[in-house]
């Protein structure tokens, strides 16, 4: 990087710079050198103009994502050391014009004008303009120039423009706009050094006079249709600086779109893409997920061997390591999902997917793009809720977030497996049928509830579609990696803080108050010791294990969780559940699948049986009886439990993420209430039908 004023007078930027001086448009008084003056530069531009790529090229990993205060709209803030300056770069949401109705665009415009409380106006604006679509992009540029602040225009996608035979006279464009224009190709990094030099120069000026731009044509005649006049101006400027006649508009996009936006073929292509997408987050993610699972199990075993105090051991192994591990295991799915999503968005396909699905999804009160989160929810609701950000409209996004957790996530699979095994041990076909039915029911209720919300709490339906279909382009891997890293960071932060707290709370509930081991278990241990003395170590080990299971069973029954199980029993009795299932439901708040290991403990098979010996667990459950001797897991209870687990809101980790994404406690609470209410009613009906 150059350390100051460019001495390379042959570079185009230096030429622009000297030209600007000659024109007398901007007067610059150099500052005495001083270390690290804060300078804020706002990055603005149309969506699809390559804003994120440029932001990443300038800041790299030194960026963090934060919401605008009090909203769920994100802005990225990055730092870049340019020369001796520490530049704060703010990546504002993409916008087409300064007068907009969408919250994202409004916030971007307000931030630029310095109208946001607690966020002063940026020192300068870096406007990114797509060289292949100058007429449209200059619209926003001219509005930003009218703010009378220092502006640098980064004329991006110059490589694409060249390929399309679009020649732009940069010097002429600078004269027309009265500000610095730097031709770049953010994706290849071309022109970035020159851009950094310009930023450095701008930051180094004591008094920077704003860009000298006046659009007299617009100022006088804008009263009637400001858009019309401004577009006439952008067109005339484009005509002056660009040889549009020779331009070869690429035919590739048109040909691809004929197929990908076709009402039938387009939907087919969409389903194929989504199938591949699902395959990635469901099956490919399995390998790293097993590795993470294994890693946490190893850490747990190691910690258990180091810490001998039983309470502390259980706290560390089950509460901390088990709790965080149980959530971090979803990290591969989250990474793969956001990586694939970023690639899909970058190629331009996501806009087409929204286009073809819009008509179908609209009938349910959801936008076309809702398909992505709803599909992802079949892996895990957490990334699904996070990915709802692809939907711009807040109402549509909220509707999607509210229904997404009804989809059968992978944490439900162990429960479905347990129940189908209890119901149809001899008939894999019937078991498979019930399994499929459980998935279908999740989808049916999710879409049904979206439809209900449209007619009740979220009226107005999904907003009519307006979407730009950008030209197809090769996706940027760097952008995808950084986006994935960003999302993963947010998730890990949540898992490490609030989700850890929830896990510790649930651990406490199931471990305290402590109770003495039952007399039978004590007697068995004593007997085991005697047997060992007489040499029958095999029988002794078996007896010890049985005593251990009895102790664990009694400890859980006497814990807070056990007491809560008894307290809620009257409430869940109409669904066919007893207090033992009640304990399982409470433990499911950590993660749904925990009910399987909890039932193993409650019925005295031991926690290990849930992992290693499912058959013994199922046999025990099948023979479990109530106090009156009647079996617990009848067909009616099994079906009721299945329906309950399909519909109820149980995953507190999801609620934490919903709170973050909706920026309110109201919506996650509402979600828990409506889903659990739905589950209660449906289970009640099912229990009494069988």
């Amino acid at each position, binding site marked *: 990087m150059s350390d100051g004023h460019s001495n390379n007078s042959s570079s185009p930027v230096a030429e622009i710079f000297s030209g600007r001086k000659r024109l007398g448009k901007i007067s610059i008084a150099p500052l005495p050198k001083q270390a690290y003056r804060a300078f804020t530069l706002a990055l603005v531009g149309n969506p699809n103009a390559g804003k994120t790529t440029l932001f990443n090229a300038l800041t790299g990993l030194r960026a963090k994502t934060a919401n605008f205060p009090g909203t769920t709209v994100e802005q990225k803030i990055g730092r870049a050391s340019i020369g001796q300056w520490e530049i704060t770069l703010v990546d504002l949401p993409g*916008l*087409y*014009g300064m*007068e*907009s*109705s*969408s919250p994202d*665009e409004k916030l971007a415009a307000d931030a630029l004008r310095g109208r946001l409380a607690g966020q002063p106006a940026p020192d300068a604006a870096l406007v990114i303009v797509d060289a*292949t*679509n100058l*007429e*449209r992009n200059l*619209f*926003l540029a001219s509005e930003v120039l009218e703010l009378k602040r220092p502006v640098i225009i980064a004329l991006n996608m110059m490589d694409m423009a060249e390929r399309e035979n679009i020649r732009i006279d940069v010097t002429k464009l600078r004269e027309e706009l009265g500000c610095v224009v730097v031709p770049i190709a953010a994706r290849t990094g071309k022109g970035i050094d020159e851009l950094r030099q310009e930023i450095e120069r701008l930051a180094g000026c004591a008094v920077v006079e704003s860009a000298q731009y006046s659009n007299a044509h617009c100022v006088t005649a804008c009263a009637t*249709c400001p*858009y*019309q006049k401004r*577009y*006439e101006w952008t067109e005339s400027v484009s005509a002056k600086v660009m040889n549009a006649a020779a331009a070869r*508009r690429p035919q590739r*996009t*048109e040909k691809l*779109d004929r197929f990908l*936006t076709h*009402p039938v073929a387009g939907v087919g292509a969409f389903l194929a893409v989504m199938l591949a997408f699902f395959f990635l987050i469901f099956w490919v993610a399995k390998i790293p997920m097993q590795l993470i699972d294994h890693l946490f199990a190893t850490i747990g075993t190691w910690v258990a061997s180091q810490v001998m105090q039983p309470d502390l051991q259980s706290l560390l192994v089950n509460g901390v390591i088990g709790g965080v591990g149980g959530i971090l295991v979803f990290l591969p799915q989250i990474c793969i999902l956001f990586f694939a999503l970023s690639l899909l968005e970058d190629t331009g396909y996501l*806009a087409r997917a*929204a*286009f073809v699905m*819009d*008509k179908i999804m*609209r009938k349910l009160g959801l936008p076309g793009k809702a398909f992505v989160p709803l599909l992802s929810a079949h892996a895990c609701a957490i990334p699904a809720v996070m990915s709802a950000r692809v939907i711009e409209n807040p109402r549509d996004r909220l509707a999607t977030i509210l229904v997404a957790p009804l989809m059968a996530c992978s944490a439900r699979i162990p429960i479905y497996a347990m129940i189908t095994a209890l119901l149809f041990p001899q008939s894999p076909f019937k078991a498979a049928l019930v399994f499929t039915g459980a998935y279908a029911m999740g989808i049916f209720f999710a879409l049904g509830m979206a439809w209900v919300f449209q007619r009740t709490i979220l009226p107005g339906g999904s*907003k*009519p*579609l*307006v*979407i*730009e*279909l*950008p030209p197809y382009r090769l996706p940027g891997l760097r952008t995808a990696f950084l986006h994935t890293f960003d999302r993963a960071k947010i998730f890990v932060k949540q898992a490490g803080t609030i989700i850890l707290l929830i896990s510790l709370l649930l651990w406490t509930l199931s471990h305290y108050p402590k109770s003495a081991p039952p007399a039978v278990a004590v007697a068995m241990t004593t007997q085991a010791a005697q047997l060992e003395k007489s040499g029958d170590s095999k029988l002794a080990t078996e007896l010890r294990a049985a005593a251990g299971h009895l102790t664990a069973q009694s400890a859980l029954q006497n814990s807070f969780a056990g007491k809560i199980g008894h307290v809620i029993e009257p409430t869940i009795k109409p669904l066919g559940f007893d207090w033992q299932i009640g304990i399982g439901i409470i433990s499911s708040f950590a993660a749904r699948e925990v009910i399987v290991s909890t039932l193993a403990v409650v019925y005295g098979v031991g926690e290990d049986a849930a992992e290693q010996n499912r058959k013994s667990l199922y046999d025990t459950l099948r023979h479990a009886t109530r106090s009156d001797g009647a079996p617990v897991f009848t067909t009616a209870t099994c079906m009721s439990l299945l329906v309950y687990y399909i519909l109820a809101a149980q995953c507190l980790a999801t609620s934490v993420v919903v709170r973050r994404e909706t920026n309110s406690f109201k919506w996650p609470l509402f979600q828990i209430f409506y889903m659990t209410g739905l589950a209660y009613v449906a289970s009640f009906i099912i229990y009494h039908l069988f």
Partner: protein
Amino acid sequence: MMTEDSTNLRETRLDKLPQRSCAVVRRIETESEEFLRLKSLGLCIGRQIEVVKSGDPLIIKIFGSRIGLSASLAARVWLEVCAPDHCNLS
């Protein structure tokens, strides 16, 4: 410029325009918030557009960019169809 009468005669709604036709926007019947975005995308009075794909949703081309929009929005836009070969959009 047209007189009032002839303008009305030759005006067609955007959702009724056939594929591949090109026209100039004459009137927009609503001030709804979606139109703010459509206007900043270039769908405003006096602009020449081309219908790339008709139906619901439909695709129009303004300048170099392609925009998909619901037919319900397109029904609010009245245009004057250009003579053949008037536009050179391809």
